[in-house]
């Protein structure tokens, strides 16, 4: 994990010789999580994420995000369902790529509510897990000058990305979240 943090820090602060003009960004995205099982009898519901990037320094942002998803399994009269909500705070750095590549390093908390059911009987329990996350988002729309013009359509950002997470209580328990598509608006 130390290496991951170091790598993240290097990526975050590798270059300070460029500047983007845009300020904050609001994102809404769909994510697929690696929180999967070994059975085909599972329904993975969409995992949506909304995030807000607040620019507090040149090219550097504080990202606050909330994401929510669920999954359920059912065999015979027995079932299990889990709803999870993740809260994450990250430091995000925009570095030159085709257009600003967003690299982030953050910490967060995940609340999971698990319900076991047996016919009409059910039993629910909640659990909180904190995690460390490292990841990046790659913009799909490319800008020649890596800066944005005033045209509102040019403020739209389409991205995909990957986030690697480790639970802090159990560092070996890792999750990979694939940000399949997020739509952002910069203002």
């Amino acid at each position, binding site marked *: 994990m130390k290496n991951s943090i170091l790598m993240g820090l290097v990526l*975050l602060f590798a270059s300070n010789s460029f500047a983007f003009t845009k300020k904050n960004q609001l994102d809404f995205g769909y994510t697929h999580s690696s929180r999967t099982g070994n*059975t085909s*009898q599972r329904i993975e519901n969409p995992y949506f994420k909304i995030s807000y990037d607040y620019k507090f320094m040149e090219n550097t942002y504080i990202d606050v995000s909330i994401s929510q998803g669920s999954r359920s399994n059912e065999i015979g009269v027995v079932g299990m369902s889990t709803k999870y909500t993740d809260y994450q705070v990250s430091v995000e750095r925009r570095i030159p790529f085709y257009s600003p590549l967003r690299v982030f390093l953050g910490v967060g908390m995940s609340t999971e509510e*698990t319900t*076991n059911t047996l016919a009409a*009987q059910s039993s629910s*329990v909640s*659990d909180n897990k*904190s995690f*460390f996350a490292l990841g990046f988002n790659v913009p799909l729309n490319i800008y020649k000058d890596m800066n944005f013009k005033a045209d509102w359509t040019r403020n739209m950002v389409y991205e995909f990305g990957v986030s690697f997470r480790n639970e802090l209580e159990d560092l070996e328990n890792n999750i990979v979240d694939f940000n399949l598509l997020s739509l952002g608006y910069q203002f």
Partner: protein
Amino acid sequence: MKNILKLSIVCLVMLAVNVSCSKPEPDSEMIKMQVPVLQDDGEYKLTVVEVPRPKSMETLESDFVNFKYYVSSNDIKYSAYDGKFLIDGESPNFEFVKKGDVYIPAGQIESLEAATMYYLMYTLKEKMDDLNWTFENYWPRRIVLHSVPSKNNAFYSSAGDFFGMVVYEDQYIPATMNADVWYHEAFHSIYYHAYANKLFKEKNGYNPLTKMFFSEGNKAMARMGAVRTYNEGFSDLFAFLMTGSSEIMNHFARGHSSYRNFSEKPKSYAPFSDTNYVKDDHFYVMGSYFAKSFLAIQMEKLGLEYSEHGRLSKEVRDSILQEALRFITNEVFTDIYMADNSTVEASISVLNKYRMKVLGKETEEVYFYSVDPEAMKNAKPDEILEEFTDPKKPSEDLGVKNEE
């Protein structure tokens, strides 16, 4: 730049505090889990049970059970050196959430399935320890989840000495959580180990596991099927005596359970030949009859009515279990297995001989506990079959799809 450094330091401090605050909990020998358990009223309920702490909550590995996923025949290896089977395969990653001091299965339904099997295997070990049933290389029992591409089944494989749980898509209590099914399959493994041990002793150095399970066309392997009726029937008896529920397979195979439950005294004998008359159902029908007849002999020996079998004390049930294992590894072994007589008629003969030996009286009826022996002798198989099956169900339901 200073701000950035400050912020990164804050992040790292947060990480360090969080990690240091998550102290490992002190290990206790027993833990509590919530799993579906068969209740006295015959229904399953989510219940908190106490079980030994596994070596890892992620794999639920313990000295009595070992879980694997997706095993193919190439993953099963037998060591002639120590007589043990080894199974390679994907290790599971079960999840639990703690509510107070109770571990609640979470994440994926395999966690709930495995936790339930973990509990059932623990109860099996407790019972076997009580009965002093010890077999070489028996523990830990290996369980392979979703092992073969069939559905709605559970089996014990003597060819790898493991329990197989396949995908369940029916509408009842799944095999992985069904106590009847588990104890039924567990007794198959006990039976084979008891047999293997016996062969080992009587054949003076003969390696029973190797010969029985791997030699093509081996005599021992061929003869195993000869006593399959007893194997199936006494596995049902074991499930009944372990759960106390006479409605064997009621929650798993509704169309299959009507002639396998122990609620009624065996009233007739279906004179099937030992050819596969109704596919594999033959073994279950006859096995059930043998097991119920054996139970009736025990009840008579104890001076009890058959209808009292639902209220037997733990001590009485244990004594019947002891006698059941002795019976199928001695009486059946000697008279059917060794005599190379695998017919159903020979099985009936063994049962009647045993009755005379235990109760000290000749069999009064040609067919054991038959209400009308003459009618039974002359009955056509279709008519007999109706007595063992639910008349509401079409006969196609008899195809064995749930139990092996």
